[in-house]
């Protein structure tokens, strides 16, 4: 029992305030973004151009990160692969977060049959482990970016839905919402002042974790050769392609692994605490 009678620590901003760890994650991610998008500006090598006379070269001035087994420029390929992974992650996170948030709030708020229907749909999507669902969709349209994207988003939205729904359900019956309702405020106000500030940090966390999962899933599919098709520069695909040469060219093999690691690591840091 302290001298002060204040309860619970307060936050200073209405936007989720980031912890130190989250700042490190954000910084790492920013650096990676800068790398991926700035490289093409001054290094104009085509990530798909093969030069069979210069395979598995060590890093040099012309090819700062060396070349792969087909003589392709690894700097250009790694940057392209990061762009692809991040773009895909961003796209599927947004696609998943919007309906997840929307349906979660509706289900948690309205309850009743609507809640049951949406809940059953989410449960159905969860019945199969995520990657299995993505694999089946990919099997229908092999090598197709959109199949991957739809599959991953289909798996990701449930997480938002469940977290948002559970939180909304608690908040809707809370005294703070009841009080504001008695004071004559409408649903939009209740969402803006009561729900969103509580949901935002969790949605951010889920978004970062979701992005990491999307990147990992795409790489995993590439690695087992059922994801995107060569010659696309994709992290998992690069790994499996370079795997036979890891003895001769360990630096080449290490690049996609390292890129993937930093990507996922920074996103995990940015996510902060696991809400589950």
């Amino acid at each position: 029992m302290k001298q002060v009678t204040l309860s619970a620590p307060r936050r200073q901003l209405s936007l989720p305030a980031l912890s130190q760890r989250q700042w490190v994650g954000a910084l790492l991610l920013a650096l990676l973004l800068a790398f991926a998008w700035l490289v093409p500006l001054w290094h104009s090598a085509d990530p798909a151009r093969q030069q069979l006379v210069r395979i598995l070269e060590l890093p040099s001035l012309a090819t700062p990160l060396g070349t792969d087994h087909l003589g392709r420029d690894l700097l250009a390929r790694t940057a392209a692969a990061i762009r692809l992974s991040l773009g895909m992650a961003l796209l599927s996170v947004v696609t998943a977060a919007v309906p997840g948030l929307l349906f979660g709030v509706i289900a948690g708020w309205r309850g009743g049959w609507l809640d049951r229907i949406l809940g059953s749909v989410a449960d159905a999507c969860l019945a199969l482990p995520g990657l299995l669902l993505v694999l089946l969709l990919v099997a229908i349209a092999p090598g197709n970016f959109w199949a991957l994207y739809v599959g991953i988003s289909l798996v990701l939205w449930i997480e938002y839905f469940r977290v948002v729904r559970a939180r909304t359900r608690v908040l809707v019956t809370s005294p703070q919402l009841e009080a504001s309702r008695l004071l004559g405020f409408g649903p939009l106000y209740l969402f803006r002042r009561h729900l969103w500030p509580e949901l935002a940090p969790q949605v951010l966390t889920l978004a970062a974790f979701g992005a990491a999962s999307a990147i990992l899933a795409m790489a995993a599919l590439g690695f087992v050769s059922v994801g995107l098709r060569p010659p696309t520069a994709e992290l998992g695909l690069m790994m499996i392609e370079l795997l036979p040469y890891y003895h001769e060219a360990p630096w080449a093999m290490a690049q996609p692994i390292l890129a993937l690691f930093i990507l996922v690591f920074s996103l995990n840091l940015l996510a902060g605490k696991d809400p589950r």
Partner: protein
Amino acid sequence: MSHPLLQATDLTIQGDGVTIAPFSLNLGSGERLTLLGETGSGKSLIAQAIMGTLPRGLTTSGELLIDGTRYAAADVAARRTLWGRRLALLPQEPWHALDPTMRAAAQITESHRHVAGLARADARQATQHDLTELGLEDAGGKLPGELSGGMAQRVAFAAASAGGAPIVIADEPTKGLDAPRRDAVVELLARTPRAGGALLTITHDIDVARRLGGEVVILRQGQVVERGPAQQVLSDPQTEYGRRLLGAEPSRWPAPPPLTSAADATPVVTARGLAKSRGGRLLFQDLDVSVGPGEIVGVVGPSGCGKSTLGDMLLGLASCDAGEIEHAPGHRLGLQKLYQDPPAAFSSHWRLSRLLDDLVRRHDLERSAIAPLMERLGLDGRLLVRRPGEISGGELQRFAILRVLLLKPRLLFADEPTSRLDPITQQQTLSLLVELARERHCGVMLVSHDPALIARVCDRQLALGEATNVNGPAASARPLETASA
């Protein structure tokens, strides 16, 4: 004077913005000492310093004599072996202090077996004996989640005292319990000194201190304000703070301003033949209620008897199984509510000025009405730049009253609005509420678990529970046990 069981000499606590001035006590066999104080007085810290369970960051110094052995207060590790055997601690919230996944009997048995050192069969028998003695015959096989607060307190008592410790420290043992259960706990505590032990009780409840008797110490911000025999300190305090603290007891409150509006004024709400059941249990039926303008109607009854539900029904927040509710004509924002836990009634993310501004803009209110009302409520304008969690509970509850009154309500349902507040703050808040309600002809339905408070503040009272409905003037309520001679 019997032989000393617990002696503390110059006990101090330091650190983390906390300072407890040197404190000494002497408790012999059969004696009782009660530390009385408000939130932040440091009363619990003294108990923790004696046990050796102070939170990290706090250091203690001084000397302790426990059952004939001397200890430096700072040497926490040495006292661990005394736990359960010489020193027993009754936890603050028994519900949380019991392992949620272990049945009640097992939690008592393990104390008998591992602390008192009984054989398995004997321990089981001793547990059965404890349960019977405490009137818990049926509770042994239950999990803590299935026990009531009072039952959990008795189970915790049995588990803590199975080791036969002569010194019992009870830290806020009546927190969150309603009046009858509180009395039962006091009865339970009184066993220790009767059996020749020593009892140290920490409480904010003056009534509990009075019933326990013995010596009373009034603490404020880490300082001893006053100490002496309970009868003397709690009936004729010598210090200004002591008088204020005692004056905050409901039975000593000044009478509220009289109800001025005509007795035949149209009630703001009238309900006839209300019935409600919850979870298959009938809460009440054939209940008639009415609240006149400016009238304060109290609702009392044991926990879970449907007090809050009744209020919510009158506000239209809960449905009723039978009966009809009729509101006096007026604008739709005329029904308002005050909540038990003020921070829970606000979104913690926005400044109070922003929340007030939202309200003014939503309903085109007069801005000029705010300042005088804030002054009446004793709210400093500088508080507005803070967020709900950054001001005290009492201030926030007054802010809640402010925002409700701005809408000129006809009926205000106040659901235990002061039960989380310290006594002095409670009195201030409630007297302001009554005053303003009278002035503005706003009917108030006030729920409280404290019958004395209801009897003092309300014009009429309604007792729920046991399917009997007394609906009459407060004067006919049962005699006030809390009134002092």
